């Protein structure tokens, strides 16, 4: 029995291990096995081809990055250039903050207040620059439509 590189007297064990399965392997008809494997491959067990280049993880990550950059750019653009398009809140506030309230009649003031009520209802879900009219729900649209005559009346 030898003292092997592993520092354990296991040479005898190794010799047995080397013989393990040798007879069964010798009985294997290798040529028949090779032909059977080829036949199975022909029958549909084909190799999995490498994934298409653009579907590889690196390309997918790059594409996701581009989408994020474009999305962020659009968001910033809308915030900078389209601040008051979607809600009409600012026009009311501008009118109200222009110091002209003192000149309003009681009817005009009531209209302004009604307009404010409508815009307050919308503010929890609608933010300037982030959504358009098409994003409003039916109740929000109805509120907005009700507010428009009030605002027009104020401006008149």
């Amino acid at each position, binding site marked *: 029995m030898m003292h092997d590189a*592993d520092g*354990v007297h*296991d040479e005898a*064990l*190794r010799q*047995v*291990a*080397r*013989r*393990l*399965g*040798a007879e*069964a*392997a*010798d*009985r*294997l*008809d*290798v*040529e*028949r*096995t*090779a*032909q*059977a*494997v*080829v036949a*199975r*491959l*022909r029958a549909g*067990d*084909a*190799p*999995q*081809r*490498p994934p298409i280049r653009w579907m590889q993880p690196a390309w997918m990550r790059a594409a996701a990055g581009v989408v994020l950059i474009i999305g962020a750019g659009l968001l910033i653009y809308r915030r900078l250039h389209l601040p008051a398009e979607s809600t009409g809140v600012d026009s009311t506030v501008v009118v109200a903050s222009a110091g002209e309230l003192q000149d309003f009649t009681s009817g005009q003031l009531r209209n302004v207040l009604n307009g404010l009520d409508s815009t307050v209802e919308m503010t929890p879900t609608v933010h300037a620059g982030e959504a358009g009219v098409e994003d409003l729900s039916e109740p929000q649209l109805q509120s907005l439509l009700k507010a428009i005559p009030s605002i027009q009346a104020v401006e008149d």
Partner: protein
Amino acid sequence: MIAAWQAGDERAAAELVRRHARAVARFLAGAGAPEADLDDLVQETFIRAFRAVASFRSQCQFRTWLLTIGGNALKDLGRRLARRRVVPLDERLESKDGDPHERTVAGETEERLRHGLTRLPRMQREVFLLRAQQGLEYGEIAAALDTTPGAARVHYHHAVKRLKEWLQ
């Protein structure tokens, strides 16, 4: 040869089977594969390998990679055969006569070793076979089994210790 198969050359596939089938069969038999299922297991090992050949990154030798795939195929077979009754090897070992022939003794030792291997955790069993039966270095074994050479060495020593206890 592997590149030729990837390009669709069936002769390359057949040649790879001829080169490695016996080593795979020996590994599987050592790991406890029933001889009746050995041919099917070898075929299954090669089919799986050829299907997944794109994932072979030469982290280890092709043969070593095949052996680990064979280990997975054997594990799957074991699940399927889990309900099949297996005659305990110990019963056969107890019925030896008083003057056994040397070859018979050697065969019995092999049987005991094979039985002992089936009782080892899978990692210890595969490390032992790759080291003792296939003669691979720890670095190669570690690469194939996705572990470190140090861990492979520890698995090997645990396997040897337990096998010796069972063989005595």
